C-alpha cells in the first residue's frame, strides 16, 4: 500500500527506508504486522526474540543471511547461495510458521491438501 506504484519507486523506498525482505528479516516482521497487527517496535522485538538475535540484527543482511540459512527461513533462488539442502519458498514457510509460532495460511493449506486420502473416506 505504502510504496504503491512501480517503475523504480520500490527501489527508492527500499534504499531509503526498507527493511530488505529476504535480504534481512523484513518478511518475518511483516508477517507479525499482517497477521497479528503488531506495531513495528513490537513486531521487531517479537521476531528478534524468536530468532535469538538483536533488533538491530534484523536489518543487517550479513547477519541475517547466516541466520536464515541456519534456521531454514528461505533465501535467494541461486545455486551458489541456496543448495538443495536449503529450504526455500513453501519449504521455508513451514520453518517460519514454527519458529514464529504464527499460523501461515498456505502452510496450513499445504498440510490439509497433502494429507493422505482414501477412497470413500
Amino acid at each position: 500500500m505504502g510504496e504503491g506504484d512501480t517503475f523504480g519507486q520500490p527501489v527508492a523506498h527500499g534504499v531509503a527506508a526498507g527493511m530488505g525482505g529476504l535480504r534481512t528479516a523484513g518478511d518475518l516482521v511483516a508477517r507479525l504486522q499482517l497477521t497479528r497487527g503488531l506495531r513495528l517496535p513490537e513486531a521487531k522485538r517479537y521476531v528478534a526474540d524468536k530468532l535469538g538475535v538483536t533488533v538491530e540484527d534484523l536489518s543487517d543482511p550479513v547477519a541475517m543471511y547466516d541466520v536464515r540459512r541456519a534456521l531454514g527461513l528461505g533465501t535467494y533462488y541461486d545455486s551458489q547461495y541456496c543448495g538443495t539442502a536449503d529450504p526455500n519458498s513453501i519449504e521455508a514457510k513451514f520453518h517460519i510458521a514454527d519458529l514464529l509460532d504464527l499460523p501461515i495460511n498456505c502452510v496450513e493449506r499445504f498440510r490439509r491438501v497433502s494429507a493422505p486420502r482414501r477412497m470413500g473416506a
Partner: protein
Amino acid sequence: MGDGSLVHLSRDEIRADLEAGTQAAAARAKVPPLAQDELDHLLEIYASPYRVVGVPQGAEVILTTDGSGTQDMGSRLNDLQIYEQVICTDTIELYNHDYSYKAVKTILPYEQTIMRQAQLLTTVPLQYGAMPDLGRYTQPDGPVQNWSELLPLGRFDEARAAQEEAVEQSADDIEFVAEGMVQAGADGLDLDTVGAAGDADFLAALKAVQAIRARFPDFGIQFGMASEFVLGMHGQLEYDGKRLAGLWPLDQLRLAQKAGATVFGPAINVNTGKTCAWNSARALTIVKPCMAEAQIPVHLNVGMGVGGVPMHVSPPLDAVSRAARAAVDILKIDGL
C-alpha cells in the same frame, strides 16, 4: 515540486515552505502543526545536497505494495518473484489489471490458481489486492442507479438509496473474494483506495473488513485510503455510530481498526503546484495524530501523488527518498 519538476531553493525558501505546509494542514484538518524541532529536522532532510537520503541504521520499516509488478512483461508469477528476489521487498501482492473486487469476483477461480501456485514458489508474505471501487456498481455498467447523475438533478433520496444498495453489493463481493483467497492460501487482503467514491465506498470497505475478520481471525487485512478526506457523496452514512462524511485520517484509522483491519494506510494528496517540502510537511502534520493512537501498524501511502511523493509516474529519487525518510523520522511510521 509536487509534479516532479526540478526546482532549486535556498534553505530559507525550504524553511518557509515547511512552515507553510504544516500550517496549511493544521488549518485544513484541524490538527496541531509540527513542532519547531520537527520542522528543523525536515529542513535538514530537504536541504541535503545528496541525491539519496536514508533513515538511520536500525530504523528501517516494512514496505507493502499496491500490486507488485507491471503485468506487462513475463507472467504475474514472474512479477512476484522479481519483487521478492531482486527488489527484495518485505511483502508482495498479486493483483489483476482490472483492479476492482467487482471485476475480480467474476474471475476468482483463475486468480485463486495463480495465488496457490505463487504461494508454493515465494517466501515473503503474499497478499491479494484490489479496490472497493464503488463507482463500478452504477449504471450503465453496473446494476444500481448512477448517483452522479441523480445528484445534479436534485434526486437526493434516489441517489442515497442507490449508494446504500451498492454498499451491500460491494461488501459482499469483497468478502467473496477474501473467502476465495483464504482458500487459495493468501496471507492477506489489501483494500486499496478505500473511499475513492466517497463515504459509501468507505462504508462498504468497513463492512467487508468486519465480515472477513469475523470469519478469518488470522487473515491479514490492509486498509489503504484513496485520499485524505472522506467525501460525503451520501452524507448520512454511519459506522459504529460515527458519521463517515468528512472524516480525516485519525477517525479513519479508528474505524478501520475497530472493523478488524491489521494495517492502516493513510493517503495524503499532493499539491502539484507546491514543493515537495511543503507537501511532506503537510502530509506528516495530517497523519501525526494517528501515530499516538494507532493499535495497528500505520503504513503511509507514498506512491505517486501521495505522502509527499510527486505526482509523476517516474518520481525523482531525491524526492522519493526524502519523503520516505521524513515519514520514518517524524512519524515513527510502521511501514510505507
